């Protein structure tokens, strides 16, 4: 049986008020890539769990989502389950619940302005095609305190 964690429930509903719009129809589940191919993953149940204030919803399992956005497309209530799951991920990250390589990937972006590291080979390939050289940028460092 799920025990309601009222404190967590309050926090989640403050941050994700659109949770309340969900009427648990399951359209998101039947559209879901993660549920169909990876298994044991239901956006509907995550939303129900969050509504119950069940802290178990904050798990690495959230990263089973393939970001296909089919749930957002089809949800008849405008809940935007993908966005809700993203917001749950944000809370999970704050509680240090996330896949191992996760922070690294986002650190690279903030530190270099690019999602991938740029080495000499990259610019040699670009030069051979007559394209301009690219360099890491510091322009995103101002968002660092996240």
């Amino acid at each position, binding site marked *: 049986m799920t025990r309601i964690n009222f404190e967590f429930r309050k926090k989640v509903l403050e941050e994700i008020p659109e949770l309340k719009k969900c009427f648990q129809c399951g359209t998101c589940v039947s559209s879901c*890539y993660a549920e169909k191919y990876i298994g044991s993953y239901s956006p509907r149940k995550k939303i129900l769990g969050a509504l119950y204030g069940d802290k178990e919803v904050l798990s690495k399992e959230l990263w089973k989502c393939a*970001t296909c956005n089919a749930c957002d*497309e089809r949800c008849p209530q405008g809940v935007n389950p993908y966005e809700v799951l993203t917001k749950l991920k944000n809370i999970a990250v704050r509680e240090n619940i996330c896949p191992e390589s996760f922070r690294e*990937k986002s650190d690279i*972006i903030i530190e270099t302005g690019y999602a*991938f590291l740029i080495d000499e080979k990259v610019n040699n390939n*670009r030069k051979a095609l007559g394209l301009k050289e690219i360099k890491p940028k510091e322009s995103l460092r*101002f968002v660092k305190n996240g």
Partner: protein
Amino acid sequence: MDEQKAGNREEDNNQKKYAFFPGCLIPIRLPLFEKLSRDFVTNLGVELIDMDFTCCPNYNIRDRNRFLWLVAAARNLAIAERGKLDILTLCGECTQTLKAANELLKDKILLLKVNKELEKINVQYNGTVKIKHILELFYESKEKLTGFVKKPLEALKVSTHTGCHLLRPSAMLKFDDAENPKKLDELSSILGCQVIDYSTKTLCCGVAVFADYKDSVLESVKEKINDIRADALIVGCATCFLQYNKAQLILKTDLPVLHYIQLLGLANGFSLEEIGYNSINRIKNKAFEEKLNITVP
């Protein structure tokens, strides 16, 4: 930075100048796609201006902190706005991020909060920039595109995969019918190809979860590949391009996957070598190669 004169950007539907947003993946991993894109767009009579853009940013930042994701996206939008230009994107992910952020920032209170962060670097966003993906530009320029066809690919049967991050959520992205996308089909048939529909057309390529759930993703790719009755799969997104090449190498299936910019190159008379078939594409197929040399009378 190039500063265009203030004026009629809003009213001018036939805009000739864009802030060019190549993203990260294409300039770093697939520079040939950047080169081909720049050349074709320029040949359409459109000028591309390079600006101080960063990663859009992608879902790794969005998953970590959605507000910072929005601030960083707004920074890119603000840079384009300062130059009085709309944005032309190449990549699916960039398109989704920038369009979604732009929609979310219609919320004036949120915009105010974001601008408070942007104050730190002396930029502000006012919500006036529009974002267009290169396929949308091609679709608007269909007549001119027809003029590029020197070698109609009439013997070639293709199926298309537009890419999730171009299609969904359609209320925000306004790219195509998300359940039954047709634009990439039409763009392929302009080049002479016969387009074959299939039932798993909107199935995700699974790249975001490939590292952690490899077998599951391979299963989904196999389902899609087996569903396609064509000589090649044409994709609109560079991430999907890499994913379908990589996954098929493991699956040992042999459906050539081409980005639309490569298909356009072939129709324009480029050789397989020149569109990167020998260097970038991992899946080779003799029957496909031979079909390119057949001219239908």
